[in-house]
Every structure is written in C-alpha cells, then in structure tokens.
C-alpha cells in the first residue's frame, strides 16, 4: 500500500532505536527517533558530542560498527525500506540513493590513491561498463561542479597535496557522483577554517538549489545551522527533543535544552557573562525512563524524573518534547538564572608591559636548503592583566608564536622579553629560567592528550608545585589544590580520580587548575576551547573570566572561534600566513575592521541568527604572499594598528 504523502518525503525514519553493546552493558545511542525530510530540504540535526547524531547517520548509511544493534524502527529512503537489507543490497543504495560527507577530509580520503582515482572509484562501482575516457571526463566534470579549479591537473594529485577545503570538495565530488536523492553531511565544516567553512556551506547550498538534492546536515554549531538549514531538529541523549522551521527554533526556543544551548553562545551574553548549561550529557543505559535532560534542567518538574515527555505541537511545523508545555504545568518564563554580579568593565592601564615581542621571526626546515616561514616579523606587547587574543586560520603561525614565547622554540630572529628577561636568549641564568617557567603557564588544545592518563588529578595539579618547591609539606599543597579545584568548578572528590574517568570539560578544568595553581603572571592558552562542545565551552570561558577577575594574570588567548574571542579578550591580533596584519582593542576591531583579511574573516563567521545569515554574503580573501611586503604599520585609531596594503 502506498501512501501519497510518503512519496514527497525522501527520508522517513520511524521509531528508530539503536543500542551499543559495551562491556558495561547495553547503552542507548538512539531512542525512539522519528523524523521525515521532504524533497529539497536542508534538515539540520543539532546536538552535543555523544548525543547520537553520528550514530543516526551511520544507521541510515548502514555502516554501523559491529557492536551496535538496531532494536526497533524503520528507515525509508525515497520510499524504499532499508532496515534489514543485506550488505550487498545496501551497497547498491549507498552512493546511489544516499551518500555521505564526513567530518575530517584529512582522514576520510585514502592517502595512497590520487583524488582522481578515488572519485573515479565512486563512479565505477555503480557503473562497471563505463569506458576509461568517459570515466575520466565524468570525474573532471564532477571536480568542476564542486569548484576544484585546474581539475585536469589536479586529477592525479594526492590528498595530502591539497588544502583542507579542496579535500572536502573532493569528498563532495564523490558524494555527488551518482546524483543521490539524499546527501548526509556529518559536520562537514568542523575541521575547516572559518573562511573555508563559508565557501563549503555556499557550495552545499548552491548544489541544493541546482539539483534539488535533499541534505541531512549534522552539526553542533548553531551559527552554521542559521546559515544553511530550512528545518532544525535538536537532539539530546539519542532523542529529538525539539523540531521546527529554522526561524521558529531561533525565535522561540521552547525546550529548556534548546534555550540553554542558544544562550550559552557569546552572542546572547548579557552583562559580560555567559550562561552555560550546568553538567554534562548523560550516558543512558537501555530502559531508561524519564526526561534525560532533567538532571541539568533548572525547570525540571517531578514528572520529568518518572516519565518521558511526549511531543507537544506549538505550530504545524514546530513541536517540542517537554512537560512544561502540558496544560497542568506551571507557566515558566525563561530567564537568565545566573545571578552573580556582572563583570566589571575592564580598565587596563596600558602602561605596564608584561611581555614585549619584537620582530619575532621563525622558520621551519623542510628539506635541504628549503625553509618555511611560520612567523614573520611579528611585534606586539602584552600588558599586565589583559587578555590578548590571537586569531587566524590553521597555518597562520599562531601556535608557533606561542611556542616561541614559551621558550619551546628558539626563534630565528627577533626578541621576546618577559618583564625584562630575554626569553629568546641562550644565556639565561638559572634563576631567570626558573622564574619564567613558574610565571608563564600553558594550556593546550587537546585537553585529553595534555594529561598523563596514569596520574591522579591531585598529582597532575600538584606537579608544578612540587617542581618549584612552593610548599614545604603535602598538607599545605593539598589545601592549595583544593582551593584551586573549587575555583575552576571541580569537586574535591575528584582528587584521586584519573583523567580517563573525567569528561572533556572536566579535563580542561584540570588543565586550567594545573596552570592557575602557580598564580602565573601570563597564561598562554592555545585554542583551549576548540575540542569542547558549545555548552562546555561556555562553562570553561566562565571559569577563565572568573579567574581573570580574581588574579592579576594576563592571558595570551589563541583561537579561531571569533565569537568567543569577542567575548573574552581585551585586545585582538589577527594573523595571516605568519604576519600580524591587524591589532586593535576588541570592540574597535569588531566594529571597524580595516585590513581586508580581517574583514573577510569577520564576514565568514556565521552568526546564530537566521535573519542575518540568510541574507549575508561573505567576502573572499585571496592574496598571494608576494603582495605581503612590509609596508609598515599604520595607526588608524588609538591603539588600532593595521599592516599597510597595496
């Protein structure tokens, strides 16, 4: 029996449940999930890591790992049921009816085949009789269609020869090879730079408009959602908890989680504070009852702990699963519950220099007699107690610069002074070295990799204290550790735990505690947020700004996420290909960017507001390096410097 209504739906998922078999028991990855996507829609599924959004993609593609099991539900693609198909049958669905783009184009391409061969494979596997000439022509057409220029030349390039954006275009060319009805994009831009992300998102939209392809878009970034999505579903703990048109979700978030997710973003910060959702997402055993979000929900009702809320319709297109919409529930006006006093405006007395960086240049050796310029003639100062942010894309030299400042690299040219001590000099006294390693602390990007998995939290935080013999006895050190743990929001009971037992947010807190326990004068934070989820990011930023208030610590904050930079920093330096191109107080930079690269960078960052995003056109910046001669600096406003352009 065919139902007419079904025909227009490309993807129809009904009551889908998936469990993981783990040594700890059966864990629900997806719980009773239903959704339907119509022809030509861009449907975004938003959620934090571990909410089951990637499992959903893999279930639809039929490429689940062997320890997972579909316990119930149906999935129909273009009217064809695919749950229960054999792998051989699924091979004729994958790539033809559905195809997929993955998160990291660095790892999703096979390094041993040329990109042309890999795209050709996607064509040939479903069309075995195609001739070699026709195949090559088709591949080059596909490469043209996804915006790979010089396609003929690049046919035989290998993945590692291309930039991240080009690689993601190759993956998209493969996905488009058989003109599938449904394209699943699993965080396709998360691993890319913000300007490249804008290009890829534009390309996706262009393909949709041209071919009428349906796109299931998975992401955690609400800015990206606002830019591309027609419909949005919010996912939490394996379940869709709110669903509606893009505009409806942003204008009237109804589930407390959706509301919390939106207000954890810096764009919604009020009085200089963020409003993070407390806690971390749960891991659900099979057979869980009640609302999974209740633990973190300040508005939780008693029924939330006992019974799963059903969907309540708000409009024909908008529905949410929360008991708050039941007519018996108390009417609640969402409000910002963070009652702590607003952050006092920062008065940086720009007189006392803590760190002076003068004409710093660093090269890396590539091979015989060839070097790359990682940092090129960069000069700036960091004042006492300020947050100085460095932004730029990958490869712009920000991490190299940070490492030079930490003394991990010896820069080739230029000087870096910390409070009068030349860090770059080889002839530092033992006393100076000890002082620098005590007063400059470092937080790295990957919170997990930075911690020794075999040490307890207490030992990790105590290690710098022991190295510098700050406390005479263990008891005094423990007092200090407890104090700092409380400050960063870690429970005292975690002292004897090991990092493997902690969540990502907790690990980053341990890193921060380890850095702050020394009361540093300067904290170098190299992308401390980029490996964390939105709600956790907000928590960490809150911790950092709390600490900033209490301590005299200056911070060098390295980031590619501009929204957080706007929120936390006092001054911003923009780096491009090793050059510092613009330097200004944060407000001034965001209000009046002068350098054309800064303009491109700001215009590329998506804002979580569909009204703004749907109409905005991002500007591109492509400049060859030869145009980057040192023309000198220009002060356009007080404290606002720009590298002169041609």
């Amino acid at each position, binding site marked *: 029996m065919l139902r007419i209504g079904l025909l227009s739906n490309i993807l129809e998922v009904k009551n889908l449940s998936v469990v993981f078999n783990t040594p700890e028991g059966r864990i629900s990855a997806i719980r009773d999930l239903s959704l339907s996507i119509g022809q030509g829609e861009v449907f975004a599924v938003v959620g934090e890591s571990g909410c089951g959004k990637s499992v959903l993609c893999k279930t639809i593609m039929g490429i689940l790992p062997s320890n997972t099991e579909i316990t119930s539900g149906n999935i129909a693609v273009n009217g064809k049921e695919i749950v229960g198909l054999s792998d051989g049958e699924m091979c004729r669905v994958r790539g033809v009816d559905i195809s997929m783009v*993955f998160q990291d184009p660095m790892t999703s391409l096979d390094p041993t085949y040329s990109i042309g061969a890999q795209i050709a494979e996607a064509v040939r596997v479903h069309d075995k009789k195609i001739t070699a000439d026709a195949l090559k022509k088709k591949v080059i057409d596909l490469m043209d269609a996804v915006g790979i220029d010089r396609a003929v030349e690049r046919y035989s390039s290998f993945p590692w020869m291309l930039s991240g954006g080009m690689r993601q275009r190759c993956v998209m060319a493969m996905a488009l090879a058989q003109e599938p009805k449904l394209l699943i994009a699993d965080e396709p831009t998360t691993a890319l730079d913000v300007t490249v992300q804008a290009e890829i998102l534009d390309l996706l939209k262009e393909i949709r408009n041209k071919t009428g392809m349906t796109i299931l878009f998975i992401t955690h970034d609400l800015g990206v959602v606002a830019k591309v999505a027609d419909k949005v579903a919010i996912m939490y703990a394996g379940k869709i908890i709110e669903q509606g048109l893009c505009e409806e979700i942003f204008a009237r978030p109804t589930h407390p989680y959706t509301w919390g997710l939106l207000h954890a973003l810096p764009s919604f910060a009020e009085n200089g504070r963020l409003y993070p959702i407390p806690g971390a997402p749960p891991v659900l055993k099979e057979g869980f009852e009640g609302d999974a979000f209740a633990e973190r929900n300040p508005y939780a009702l008693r029924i939330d702990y006992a019974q799963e809320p059903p969907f309540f319709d708000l409009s024909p297109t908008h529905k949410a699963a929360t008991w708050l919409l039941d007519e018996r529930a108390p009417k609640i006006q969402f409000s910002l519950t963070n009652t702590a006093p607003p952050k006092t405006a920062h008065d940086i007395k720009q007189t006392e220099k803590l760190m002076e960086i003068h004409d710093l240049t660093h090269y890396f050796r590539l091979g015989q007699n060839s070097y790359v310029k990682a940092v090129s003639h960069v000069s700036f100062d960091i004042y006492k107690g300020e947050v100085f942010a460095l932004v730029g894309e990958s490869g712009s030299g920000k991490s190299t610069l940070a490492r030079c400042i930490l003394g991990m690299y010896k820069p080739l040219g230029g000087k870096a002074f910390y409070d009068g001590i030349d860090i770059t000099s080889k002839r530092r006294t033992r006393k100076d070295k000890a002082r620098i390693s005590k007063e400059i602390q470092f937080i790295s990007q990957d919170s997990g990799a930075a911690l020794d998995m075999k040490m307890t939290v207490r030992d990790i935080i105590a290690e710098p204290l022991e190295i510098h013999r700050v406390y005479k006895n263990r008891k005094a050190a423990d007092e200090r550790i407890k104090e700092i743990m409380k400050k960063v929001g870690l429970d005292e009971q975690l002292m004897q735990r090991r990092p493997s037992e902690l969540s990502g947010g907790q690990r980053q807190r341990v890193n921060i505690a380890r850095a702050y326990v020394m009361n540093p004068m300067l904290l170098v934070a190299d992308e401390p947020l980029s490996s964390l989820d939105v709600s956790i990011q907000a928590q960490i930023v809150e911790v950092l700004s709390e600490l900033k208030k209490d301590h005299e610590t200056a911070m060098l904050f390295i980031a590619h996420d501009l929204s957080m930079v706007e929120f936390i920093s006092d001054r911003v330096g923009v780096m491009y290909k090793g050059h510092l191109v613009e330097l200004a107080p944060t407000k001034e930079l965001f209000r009046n960017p002068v350098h054309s690269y800064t303009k491109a960078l700001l215009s590329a960052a998506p804002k979580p507001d569909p009204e703004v995003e749907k109409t905005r056109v991002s500007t591109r910046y492509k400049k060859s390096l030869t145009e980057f001669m040192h023309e000198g600096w220009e002060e356009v406003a007080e404290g606002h410097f720009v590298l002169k352009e041609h």
Partner: protein
Amino acid sequence: MNLRNKIKLESLINKIIIVLISVFLLSLITFFMSRLAPGDPLASYYGDRVERMSTAERMHAYERLGLDGPIIGQYFKWLKAALSGDFGISFKYKQNVMTVIAGRLLNTLLLGGIGFVITFGLALLLAVACAYRENSLADRIICRIGTITSCIPEFWLSLVLILFFAVMWHLLPSSGAYAIGRANDIGSRIEHLILPLIVVVMSHLWYYAYMLRNKLLEEIRQEYVLLARAKGISKRNVMWKHCVRNLMPTMIAIMAISMNHILEGTYIVEMVFSYPGIGTLSFESAKYHDYNMLMVLTVITGIVVIIGNIIGQTISEKIDQRMKAQDKMKDLMEIVSHREMMDDASK
C-alpha cells in the same frame, strides 16, 4: 634528458654509492672483529698437527694463509684479491671459498626464499581473515593457535616431523637436499624441501600474522574506510583495495628487516635435517676461525639485506607517495632558501 629523469638518475647513483659504502664498512668491521676474537685459525687448517709445529713452521703457515703482518695490511691484501674475484681458500675445507659456497648457497636460497614468500603470503591471508571478522570465534581461535604454535621450539618440531613422516610413514626423506646423485632432479629437491619448509614457515608465520592483523585493524578504523563504504563499495573490496594497500608499506618494511632470515635464519633447520646450506656454514666459519669463509658469507648477507631494503623502500614510495615528498606545508607557507632565511633574520 628532462629534469625528471635526471633526478631519477641522481637518486639511483646515490643509492648505489650508499650500497658500496655500506658493504665496504661491513667487510672492514667483520674483518677486524673476527681477527680480534681469541683462538687459533691454524687449528682449523692443520688440525691436531698445530700442537707439534715449531715456531718457524708456524710462521711459515701464517704466511701461507695470508695471516702475517698488521691486520690493516691483511685487510687491503684481502680486498685487492676480492675485487679481482679471488676470495681465498676455506681453512676448514681447504678449497676455494666460492667452490664450497656455490652449491650450498642455492640450497639455502631455495629454502629461505620459498619459506620467506610462503610465510608472508600466508601471514597476510591470515591477517585479512582475522581482521575481516574481528573478535569472531574464528579470529580468536586462530590467534590462540598461533600463540601456542609459536612457542614450539624448531628443533623439537623438526624431530617430530621426521619421526612421523620419515621414520613411521616413509613418506618423505629425513635429510639432505636431494637424493644422492640426483642433484638436478626437481622432484627430488621438492621432496627434500617440504619438511624443512614446514618448520621454517611455522616458526615465523604467527608472529608476522599477528603483527599484520593488528596493523590492519588500525587501518579498518580509519575514516577513509567509512567513506569508501559510503561510496557503495563492498566490505571485501574495501579490505583489499584500500586497507591492504595502506598496510603494504608497513608489511614491506617488516619484510625488508627480516630479509636476513632467508640466509641465516635457517640454521637449526639445516642442522636437524642435515640440509647442506650456508646457515651451518656461517656458524662453523665463525667457530673455527675460517676467516675467508666468514668474510664472504657476511658480505653476501649484507648485500642481500641492503638491496632488500632498497627494493622495499622503492615499492613503499610507489604506494604511499607521502614518503617521498615531505613538502606538506608548501601550500600553506612561504618557502625560502637558507640564504634568504639568514638575510631575513639579520634584517
């Protein structure tokens, strides 16, 4: 000649020079080391007679065998002779070294070479079979059997095989490389190879299979496997076309390192099966101070290992071109020469 061919030729010449230098150093070190070892080389040539020799006779004997004078002088004398094709005589066999080795080298190459190919071929098949269904019953059983068999000593396994196949069932010969007087009979040679081959393969197979299996499991978890599956390629084709191809550089590296097993690793097997190969010969030459023999065997082994490594590297580079080019960062940043860099720094 275009630039590309020129670069190829240059790298070929470089490789040849490296081989020559390595072989030279190897022969130099072996020459000195063997002469520094305690013991009397005359004993292996003259046997018990040495004890009754006068000093003058001894001096004469040293001179005859080229063992007089400073070691460095001896070395260059040996080198000069060796370059013109004369490797001296074996003290123990009292014949030209090459005559002694010639017959046996072929035997060992047959045993070691076939063993090597079978070992790695089977190891790859087992690895794929196990990795294809990780943690399945078959996978677990194969891994367990592997662990157990790799604990069985070679000499014991050899003896058991001889006991059953030769002594009890009279199916296969127990010793030698061929039946007496039938050196050119291929059937006879194969018959004699079977038991030693089983021992050689069994003693190395599991170790390599397990290593390859684990490496293959790492490959299977890579994201490119998911993308290949998403294209609609079947599980088996993804395994052979993508995973195994990515495994190759690792496998070839392991093969290149274990190249010397071909020549020297069959010692125990040769002993038990009385198989006339160079494994026993090299052991004896070191034990009895048969210097000339030792030098030739070491140099041959060295050349085989070095050439094996070069071939391995070339194949790996062909498969994974990243190894050749390390200019990943070229796209991202500015490339300059050393001089430009120094100029820039001193600005």
